[in-house]
């Protein structure tokens, strides 16, 4: 046997062609046939074989394509991928696309579900001067509470600043207020600033407000204002107020309820207009 037979350019070229053609065969079958072809060449090519002799041996073997065609005809076994054929690959491709799309949808859906909710930070306070001029701030057990006198028949309310720290736009669609307010207040309204205070001024009374839906793009914030018409009176030491609100928020394709804790309580207490 010639140690150099397999590295002879003619033989190497033949084996490259053979490997390419044999890709349609099952791997063990292709490997076995290659081993037989290599053994044939090594046995047939002497140590001092000329290029012509080597070429004659390869010619005698037949073309790599004919050899593989013969193998397919003799055993009827082809690599599964070749057996499927291009017509078979179309439905497989479509199926894979559908699976990928459905998987992508659920992965995206799952990521939407786990996007962080809106976060309260920055500015906050009572909205109307008669309230913020008379607010009393108390702290107990680590919780902050601001209390203002109730003004029956008047609109009272507060604002907070909410941030969207996520990578997805969050659109506020509504709240759980249902028109009500603290202590039986009515005609409650939830509005949001239409611009980002970080970019268009941090004075809450200088920006425009609108009812939902309001979109908050990633990295931006909005003032969220809640007002209502107060009713009734509160005897000392009763108070009534809010320290959170539930918002309906659309994130991507899903709509969910976000529990927004204010970080402080906005409370109504006994007022001078009430004679109890």
């Amino acid at each position, binding site marked *: 046997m010639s140690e150099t037979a397999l590295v002879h350019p003619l033989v190497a070229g033949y084996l490259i062609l053979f490997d390419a053609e044999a890709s349609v065969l099952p791997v063990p079958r292709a490997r076995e046939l290659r081993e037989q072809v290599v053994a*044939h060449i*090594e046995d047939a090519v002497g140590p001092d074989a000329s290029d012509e002799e080597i070429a004659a041996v390869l010619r005698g073997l*037949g073309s790599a394509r004919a*050899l593989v065609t013969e193998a397919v005809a*003799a055993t009827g076994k082809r690599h599964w991928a070749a057996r499927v054929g291009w017509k078979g690959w179309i439905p497989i491709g479509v199926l894979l696309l559908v699976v990928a799309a459905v998987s992508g949808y659920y992965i995206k859906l799952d990521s939407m579900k786990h996007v962080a909710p809106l976060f309260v930070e920055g500015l906050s306070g009572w909205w109307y001067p008669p309230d913020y001029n008379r607010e009393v701030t108390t702290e107990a057990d680590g919780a902050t509470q601001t209390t203002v006198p109730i003004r029956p028949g008047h609109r009272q309310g507060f604002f907070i600043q909410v941030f969207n720290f996520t990578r997805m736009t969050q659109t506020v669609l509504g709240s759980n207020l249902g028109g009500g307010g603290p202590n039986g207040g009515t005609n409650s309204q939830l509005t949001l600033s239409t611009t980002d205070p970080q970019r268009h001024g941090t004075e809450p009374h200088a920006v425009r407000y609108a009812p939902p839906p309001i979109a908050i793009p990633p990295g931006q914030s909005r003032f969220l204002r809640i007002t209502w018409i107060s009713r009734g009176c509160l005897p000392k030491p009763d108070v009534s107020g809010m320290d959170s609100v539930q918002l309906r928020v659309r994130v991507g394709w899903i709509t969910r309820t976000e529990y927004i804790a204010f970080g402080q309580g906005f409370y109504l207490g006994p007022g001078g207009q009430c004679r109890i």
Partner: protein
Amino acid sequence: MLGVAEAELTELRRGVLGPCVLALLGQRPRFGLELVRDLAGAGGLLTSDGTVYPLLNRLRDAGLVTSEWQVAEGERPRRYYSITPAGRASLAAFRGEWAQFAATVTQVLEGAAEPAAAAAKGRPR
């Protein structure tokens, strides 16, 4: 593209090559190139040397042939093919059919040639 006769001969060779391989292996085990050379020496049986190897694999899959590596002193390891009992039974069955088959084919071919020859002889020049 192969002519009709050549294509039919190729098919015929493919059909009889298996029994011929079994017959040679029935004499003694042979390695690949040895088998190829013996078949080529018989003349007209092989379209190319490479066709023997897929055939050997098919015969082995069918349990008619088996193979094993043998190492002779001073030579590289070679895979030797030998006939199995099932292969011998298959070869015996083919031999029993072949004589009758070949005779029938010959008879039909010669009979079909006669009218054509007679027609050629009687054709005006």
